[in-house]
């Protein structure tokens, strides 16, 4: 147990200490562990999709390469860079919260949000192109394409769609901690929300780091 401070010895509890915890340390450790456990569930959630990906890639190796060539690796690569930058600004935001630097927090949370939004805009144009090229599964899917390619695109839309949904939720979280940071809520004693939001943000980035090569970089791209 980490709660070495007995409840009696604390003169006045921190206003952000919830009544069922002994100390701020215990509260922070619980939040952090909670986010890690949550991320484990996320890994399993995406894990089901990766499993399907592995099975079908094994089943249709050629169609997989063909379908991958239809994706725009330049836009995907751009988005990868955008997300890596956003992870850096997110890490800086957590650092700023830990030392209680309000201006740095606000700047970095804003930058993270802008980069996240950029990712979604690029993704939107990619999706739009797929609609125009009849690469969206269903009745409008180009019937001349090889068996298996439609499954690739089903998985592509489900995987990147769920990832994009996580980005949207992440932007909501950024808005929340931005407002809290504006009010000066976070400091050296209380920064757990920024820290766990950071963990979440990094996780969503890492998912993309896996999705990008698996979806975009199969085989040699033509032009």
């Amino acid at each position, binding site marked *: *147990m*980490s*709660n070495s401070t007995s*409840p009696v010895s604390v003169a006045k509890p921190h206003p952000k200490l*919830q*009544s*069922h915890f*002994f100390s701020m340390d*215990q509260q922070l*450790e*619980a939040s952090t*562990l*909670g986010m890690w*456990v*949550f991320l*484990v*569930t*996320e890994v*399993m*959630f*995406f*894990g*089901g*999709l990766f*499993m*399907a990906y592995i*099975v*079908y890639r094994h*089943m*249709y190796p050629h169609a997989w390469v063909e379908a991958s060539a239809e994706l725009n690796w330049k836009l995907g690569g751009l988005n990868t860079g955008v997300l890596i930058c956003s992870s850096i600004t997110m890490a800086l935001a957590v650092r700023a919260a830990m030392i209680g630097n309000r201006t740095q927090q606000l700047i970095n949370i804003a930058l993270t949000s802008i980069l996240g939004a950029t990712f979604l805009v690029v993704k939107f144009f990619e999706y739009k192109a797929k609609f125009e090229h009849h690469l969206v*599964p*269903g*009745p409008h899917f180009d019937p001349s394409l090889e*068996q*298996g390619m*439609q*499954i690739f695109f*089903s*998985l592509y*839309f*489900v995987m990147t769609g769920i990832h994009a949904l996580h980005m949207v939720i992440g932007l909501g979280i950024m808005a929340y901690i931005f407002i809290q940071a504006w009010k000066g809520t976070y400091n050296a004693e209380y920064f757990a929300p920024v820290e766990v939001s950071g963990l979440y943000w990094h996780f969503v980035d890492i998912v993309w780091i896996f999705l990008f090569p698996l979806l975009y970089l199969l085989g040699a791209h033509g032009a």
Partner: protein
Amino acid sequence: MKEADVQQEPSYLGAPYGLASWLLTKDHKRIAILYLISITIFFAIGGSFAAMIRAELVTPQGDFLTADLYNKVFTLHGVVMIFFFLIPSIPATLGNFFMPIMIGAKDLAFPRINLLSWYIYVVGATLTLAAVIMGGVDTGWTFYTPYSSISSTTNVTTAALGVFITGFSSILTGFNFIVTVHRMRAPGMTWFRMPLFVWANYATSLVMILGTPVIAITVLLIAAERALHLGVFDPRIGGDPVLFQHLFWFYSHPAVYIMILPGMGVISELVANVSRKQIFGYSFVAFSSLAIAIIGFLVWGHHMFVTGQSIYAGLVFSIITMLVAVPSAVKTFNWTATMYKGAVVWDSPLFWVLGFMGLFLIGGLTGLFLGAMGLDIHLHDTYFVVAHFHYIMVGGGVMAFLGGLHFYWPKMTGRMYSEPLAKVASMLVFFGFNLTFFPQFIVGYMGMPRRYHSYPAEFQVFNVLSTAGATVLGAGYLMILLYLVYSIVKGPKAPMNPWGATGLEWKIQSPPITHNFHETPVVTEEAYDYLHAPAPTREVTHHE
């Protein structure tokens, strides 16, 4: 309601009053009660579907329900009972209520998320009920593709989304429990001083957080395939329906342990209490929970012996299935050894313990029949399978749930129910259950397939027995509901420790105060220190 008590603080039930204070509560004990009420409603709904099934099967002809309606009824019986009753049954009620108290915490680590999990459950349940009202679902609770994703014209999408959403309530419960056990233990509450119920809930939580996300994404893929044409299992575009079965059983086999592990935890508490002895081999029982949780993830292929899965894969799954029986057997032997030379008391908890052990033993052993690859070819999709999993999930799971509910009822409500009635009810349930499901082993072995509304006339006698048993079983459940509800109104007040049990939960008032403890407890003794346990004080309360 506790004027007689010297305590200044009102119990969690009374402070504060009002519906809003319940619907917005963050108290784990109140959330447990909310869950208890919800799952009771779903148990009744699932039970009425079961009654329709048993009514249809009295005669060999399909005369009471049409084939289509019968398909919907058994599907909904399975969906409701599994996702809305059995999965949350013990963890979300008894676990939610007692796990924090047992480790000396004031609440779970995330009280708001705990309340959120109940609301998610309610939303998922409402969606599923909407699917029922809109005309039902007929895929079986397993949602097998391609029938579920392409062919079925019933409300699969709505029901699948209901199951998807409810999954998150289960994930959040597991997540909350894991963090609580790691971070919220009172001073002196080491891992090996934790009651085995806490260990069992911890192991269950591991299964919940590792397995549930996989079923969530799997049913989401079905919904996406139906609603958005994002075909992943669709054979017309080259998809593999068997992949669905792999993903489905990757969760749904471990889900059996979500239903039975917490029950094993309850039985450990009850066995120690009725034997008035330390649990024999405490650490073996604790680790067997973890072993079951882990090995349970490696056996899913035993549901797929006849799907054309490779025979070598089948062999491996068959062997690991035999292995997972070992930790279950460890528990059963240790409980028996605990009772051996124990000062066994003839209280109603003993009835539930013995009932559980008998039924779980039969269920577990017949599981070995089904895990044996060759035999399973004969028994696959017969009533033998139906009988087997009911022995585990109802015989084991529900028996333990009821045992735990009776054992902890005085603590939860502050009232005592009638002991003689509880003994009668437990025997009704035990005999009714056996009469319902034992004939199904025989008729299944003779070859009666599951999921048909009509059957050859030579199977009728077994089905009549089964329906007669189901009637007795239903009467037993109804009786329990009646005397428990009656006890809230008219039952004598419960003392602090009616069973003379050990553990922090029995050292606080009945019912507990909102923050459970007046002062944070400091734990200095092992679990189940029955050498120093107080004597039962139930009798004192009768002249209240």
